[in-house]
């Protein structure tokens, strides 16, 4: 996979590109996939996806994050063949999706579950009836349908809502029905297109927990799409950031959280754990390094959290006042990390040695600006 690096990506970390045999074993794999929608009246052609390479290992959860219009839905719809790629190849569990005819594709879709932002449940069917639908479509007999649907209702915690219609369920309950429905045909892959975007934070959490459980206990491979970083950190191990139809950054969720390379990733992390600059400070922050000004530096601690000690010893070493402006400690993918905003004199005598001091200790720094 040789993705052409753009100039602004020059500093993108080495992508954990899967090795050849990893790729062969990948549950979902996209190779140089592009998708262009033909021009409509009054508009030009839209390139929704541009040379996408992607691999999802069996049993893993890959999160794809991007803004509205970045091409996320198109990407996920390519995986189950709802859209055909303009170029490139797509494999699901070893099957070349793009090479299949519509009839064979229908067969393959039965081994790929999908959940949606607006649930897409039939209002005319009860919870039970909705979960039964994919089985009816697959031609499964009545007794077998019952034998499969009842445990699924149990699994998603809706056994008591069996005969309720969607109108009688809450958003979270509807999505649980959606998840049970997606699991009914015992798929190997679950595609999730903004499945929590219409839910409140608490319900989002419970739905993500359920997806996590399913991933662990059923070994289901999940490709999840979202525009919220908080969703990614709660469920995914790996993340790909998509912008303007291209993957601009990807890697381990912890790495991306603690060392975002691309501007888009950074903007997604915007307010996340200690990254936000306090409003009062932000208003005074400028790009000019005037004499006597103070530099504002963001320091990210990965793993080790001896932040206080590091700052006080720096203070001693520089013979200067190093102020802690704000800070936060957080955990991503089970590993701790801390973010500290510090202020120190911006003169060459202080700033350069301070940055070197952090670099020696393997800490990432970023000079955010200067205050007079």
């Amino acid at each position, binding site marked *: 996979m040789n993705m052409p690096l753009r100039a602004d990506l020059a500093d993108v970390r080495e992508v954990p590109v899967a090795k050849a045999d990893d790729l062969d074993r990948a549950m979902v794999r996209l190779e140089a996939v592009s998708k262009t929608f033909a021009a409509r009246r009054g508009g030009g052609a839209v390139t929704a996806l541009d040379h996408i390479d992607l691999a999802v290992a069996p049993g893993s959860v890959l999160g794809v994050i991007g803004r509205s219009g970045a091409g996320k839905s198109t990407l996920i719809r390519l995986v*189950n063949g*709802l859209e055909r790629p303009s170029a490139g190849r797509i494999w699901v569990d070893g099957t070349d999706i793009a090479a299949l005819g519509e009839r064979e*594709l*229908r*067969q*393959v*879709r*039965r081994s*790929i579950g*999908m959940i*949606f932002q*607006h649930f*897409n*449940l*039939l*209002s*005319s*069917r009860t919870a039970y009836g909705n979960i039964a*639908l*994919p089985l*009816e*479509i*697959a031609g499964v007999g009545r007794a077998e349908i019952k034998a499969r649907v009842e445990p699924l209702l149990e699994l998603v915690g809706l056994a008591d809502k069996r005969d309720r*219609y*969607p*109108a*009688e369920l809450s958003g979270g309950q509807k999505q649980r029905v959606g998840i049970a429905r997606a699991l009914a*045909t015992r798929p190997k892959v679950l*595609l999730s297109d903004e499945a929590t975007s219409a839910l409140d934070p608490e319900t989002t959490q419970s739905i993500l927990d359920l997806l996590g459980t399913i991933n662990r206990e059923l070994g289901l491979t999940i490709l999840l799409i979202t525009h919220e970083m908080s969703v990614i950190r709660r469920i995914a191990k790996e993340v790909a950031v998509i912008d303007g139809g291209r993957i601009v950054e990807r890697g381990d969720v912890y790495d991306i959280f603690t060392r975002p390379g691309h501007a888009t990733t950074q903007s997604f992390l915007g307010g996340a754990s200690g990254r936000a600059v306090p409003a009062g400070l932000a208003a005074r922050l400028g790009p000019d390094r005037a004499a006597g000004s103070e530099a504002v530096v963001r320091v990210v601690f990965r793993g080790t959290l001896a932040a206080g000690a590091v700052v006080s010893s720096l203070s001693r070493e520089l013979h200067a006042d190093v102020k802690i402006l704000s800070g936060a400690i957080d955990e991503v993918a089970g590993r701790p990390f801390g973010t500290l905003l510090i202020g120190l004199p911006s003169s060459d005598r202080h700033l350069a040695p301070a940055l070197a001091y952090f670099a020696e200790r393997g800490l990432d720094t970023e000079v955010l600006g200067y205050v007079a």
Partner: protein
Amino acid sequence: MSPEIVQLIAEATLDTLWMVAVATAIATLLGVPLGVFLATSGRGELFALPAVNRIVGLVVNATRSTPFIILVVAIIPFTRLIAGTSIGTKAAIVPLTIAAIPFIARLVETAVREVDQGLVEAARAMGASPLQIVRKVLLPEAVPAIALSLTLAVVSMIGYSAMVGAVGGGGLGDLGIRYGYQRFMPDVMAAVVIVLIVLVQGVQTIGDTLARRLNKRLRHN
């Protein structure tokens, strides 16, 4: 009003109900599939057949824009062919049905188009064939709207059936013309109008109730 007249009104009411029932049944049988076809055969749709869609659409529009009374006269040869006669209750069923088919088809088309596209998307993602999507998603989801459409069709046909009375079609309209108008019996005319009003009200109430029962989007509890 004499017992004979009351008897006549009762018979005419039954005739009207019979005409409307038979015409509705046949028109539903043909109009619903036609409506589903219209709703699913456009460009980029489930059974994309844009050319056929356009032609069928034209025929439907042409039939719908022909005033009913002209349609009745224009298709007399066809009516004779089907019913063996061009006057009476049996003959009246033919133009009624012909007029009702495109009417029902357009209403069903609208009902099917109103179904959330997300459901079609979900069904496709499950591996449903276009026919399965129609049978398991589009029709069941459109049922409440179709029930209302058929109610509207029945109400319109009660009106139309009174119109065929003008050309000797039998039923309440026929009675109203012959007795109320030609023999100048205003009480018969009034009775006919009242029976028609009651019929329409009854049909509308039944249709509304049925549609509400069928609509699972409402919370019932």
